């Protein structure tokens, strides 16, 4: 084995997939961590004092992200308050095992953990959803629900920023897929490292320039505890094509992944005249088209939505009514046939998602307690904190006490409509 090309003293232990350099383990760790640090600083991802939730699935990317951010936060004194935030989709044999990994990570890094579950938020687990909709379009439900679940978990934790473990390979694949399926809007925004312009909590991808192979190597050499199984419900057929193509490209030219991201950034830069027109127009033509708003809140759950009712609420309505295709594709005809309108009275909808106002109230009530519990020392496994700590306390098991407290809280806030909605939800 040749000598490390960086320190020239130690024996090289690996060849970096990104650069082709032969390096020793110590130099690899340092280079890997320093590149992520540079990505964070050059893109100004964090502000001192920010409370940052790490979207943790228990997989390699999020495990390495939690490890590296924990390390860099101490090494470079970012002054971040880190927490782990997990989503339990309710997939037996997959998510339950990976969440066990996250719970071990919580102890290993001494970071508080919050788990939000589909079952508690929506009343449906992915197992139940797949039982109803089958294996086609099930990822639509999971994707829409996960986005909201992360945001709702972040609101409950009082978090300013969510970081996710999307790596360079993921982003390059997404660029290719968006070209192939003709999604110009997503193509233009899928390479941005930081999203904080659409009214939701700021999100970022510190691994934007980090190769998947290097993440796996880092986790392997550092002996990190992670869970590696593909989701049992994800066919990934279309992404599979893009993935194979990307791996072929990487085999003949390792820089191809960064090259694709670079191209994706060039797509984002130009402002297309038509899209500029559509964003400018509603400012003065707002009253003409009340159904299509630029940015607003879902009238059912208060989540950010460009339509009157957000996608998650429409999908949930479909599930509750036994019409799972209600939110997929063009559904006007389906709605007419079943005589359904978006403005249906809430009583007929079945269970709805808890209103964001209620979630914020709950978070506000929990925050003094959360602030009191110090975030850095590792809580003993199984300790039931308020808001943070054991997963099932804050969102699951709608106890009667919580229901009355919420009802009272909302009534005091002079929002009877919300109170009735909250009460309905508890039924």
């Amino acid at each position, binding site marked *: 084995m040749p000598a490390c090309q960086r320190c020239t003293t130690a024996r090289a232990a690996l060849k970096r997939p990104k650069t082709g350099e032969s390096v020793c383990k110590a130099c690899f760790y340092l280079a890997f961590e320093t590149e992520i640090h540079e990505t964070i600083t050059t893109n100004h991802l964090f502000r001192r004092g920010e409370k940052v939730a790490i979207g943790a699935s228990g997989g390699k990317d999020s495990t390495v992200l939690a490890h590296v951010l924990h390390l860099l936060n101490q090494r470079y004194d970012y002054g971040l308050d880190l927490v782990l935030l997990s989503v339990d989709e309710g997939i037996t044999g997959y998510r339950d095992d990976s969440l066990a990994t996250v719970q071990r990570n919580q102890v290993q890094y001494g970071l508080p953990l919050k788990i939000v579950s589909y079952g508690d938020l929506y009343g449906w687990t992915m197992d139940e959803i797949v039982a109803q909709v089958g294996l086609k379009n099930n990822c639509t439900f999971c994707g829409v629900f996960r986005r909201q679940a992360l945001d709702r978990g972040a609101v409950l934790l009082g978090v300013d920023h969510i970081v996710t473990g999307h790596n360079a390979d993921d982003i390059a694949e997404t660029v290719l897929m968006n070209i192939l399926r003709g999604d110009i809007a997503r193509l233009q925004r899928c390479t941005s490292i930081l999203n904080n312009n659409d009214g939701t909590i700021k999100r970022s991808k510190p691994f934007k320039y980090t190769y998947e192979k290097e993440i796996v190597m880092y986790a392997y050499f550092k002996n990190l505890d992670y869970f590696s199984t593909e989701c049992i419900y994800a066919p990934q057929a279309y992404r599979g094509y893009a993935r194979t193509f990307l791996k072929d490209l990487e085999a003949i030219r390792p*820089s191809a992944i960064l090259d694709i991201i670079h*191209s994706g950034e060039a*797509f984002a830069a130009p402002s297309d005249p038509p899209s500029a027109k559509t964003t400018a127009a509603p400012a003065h033509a707002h009253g003409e088209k009340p159904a299509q708003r630029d940015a607003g809140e879902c009238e059912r759950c208060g989540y950010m939505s460009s339509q009157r009712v957000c996608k998650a609420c429409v999908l949930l309505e479909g599930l509750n009514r036994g019409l799972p295709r209600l939110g997929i594709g063009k559904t006007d005809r389906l709605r007419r046939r079943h005589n359904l309108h978006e403005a249906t009275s809430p009583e007929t909808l079945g269970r709805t998602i808890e209103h964001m106002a209620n979630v914020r109230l709950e978070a506000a009530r929990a925050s003094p307690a959360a602030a009191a519990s110090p975030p850095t020392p590792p809580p003993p496994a199984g300790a039931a904190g308020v808001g943070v700590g054991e997963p099932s306390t804050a969102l699951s098991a709608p106890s009667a006490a919580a229901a009355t407290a919420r009802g009272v809280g909302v009534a005091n806030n002079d929002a009877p409509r919300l109170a009735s909605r909250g009460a309905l939800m508890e039924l």
Partner: protein
Amino acid sequence: MCDQVANDRPATPNKSGRLSKPRSREAEQGYCSKCKTVKATIAVRQSIFCKACFLTGTEAKFRTAMSKLRPSTPPRPAGSGSNESSGPSGVLALSGGCCSVALLHLLAMLIEQDRSRPHAVPQIASLAVVFIDESEIIPCDPAYYPRLEALVRQYAIPLRTVKLSSAFDLNTAGRTLVVENTTVSSTVPDPTKSSLDRLRAVFDSSPSTSAKEDLLDSIRTHLLLHAAQDATYLFLGSSTTTLANRVIAATAKGKGASIPRFLAPTSAPLGSASPTVLKPLATFTAKELGLFTYFRRLDVIPFPTLTSARPPGLKVSVHHITQSFLAKLEATQEGTVSAVYRTAAKLRASPTDAPLCPLCLECPLEPADVAAGTRHGATTAGHVAMVCWGCGTVLDELQRRDRRGARGPVEVPLFDQIAEYLLSDDDE
């Protein structure tokens, strides 16, 4: 009841009591959707046609495409090279493939039709054909050349063959470009070596087929623009399939910024002094053009490329992988190719004042520190200030001597655009 309505359609009274106008007849199952009288033989453009309707349809589509190109390009007065100076002159880049052969036939047809109408303003008054001969680096069957000459001769159009090695003679000062590690410099070439020796040295030394393909592409672009310098238009036979492949390949090579430029139906890469590059076949798929050449019995000559005779499963070059990837995807999900083309056509070039890369003439140059910041040393390309991101990788890979890391300087043609850049560099 439904049958009755269908049968009585022409006489069915509408709501106002008047008899509705008979709607155009629907073609019966399996019949040509245009003439509806002959059994259809081909399925293109989301429909089925008979041979005759397909051919007339293709020619009509071409005339429409040409008339759409005309208003946006006020013809530059033809230079001294054009002999029939009664209108704009054109040069067609012929490769021998089905797209450019079809374009030759369609353009010749258009000129013929214009001549038959003496009062009409001709779209192109004269046409010449340029063929870039790559046999110096890619061995090819000598029988192909007489076939090519015969193909062009039947239209009574002059054919000009340009050797690839003449790219080394393009520089007015007779210098070449030497790339070594991250430095580029111009030099007076060794007089004992011919242009052919130098060309072979570049293409034989590096193991990277992707880099060689890209260099070949750049050389071809420069040679074509040079050959057409006196003409008003340079016609390229790029089809939707070619362009979609280029979109994906450009993305994979970090040249995403070049897409709006090479997808534009008209462009002038060297400014107003150069011919306007037109791509009238941009909305035709390779399948349409292949069928057209087949039915018109045109001689398509399969000149080999750098990746010819390599099995599609083999990972040879970025272009090779991209082609087999898109072809496979199109086979399973029809419409992918046109979706790629239409999506990419919506992209706009960023409003930048940065000059274009002197090598590929397509990508805007970007500040070196910006490019290096996101590269994290992924490649050792350090030419970013001189050429674009993608061409930096090409120049870097051309310096490789084997797959284990041996490197050596490389001598490439010095185009005047690069020479200008070098001069301004020296002045500073």
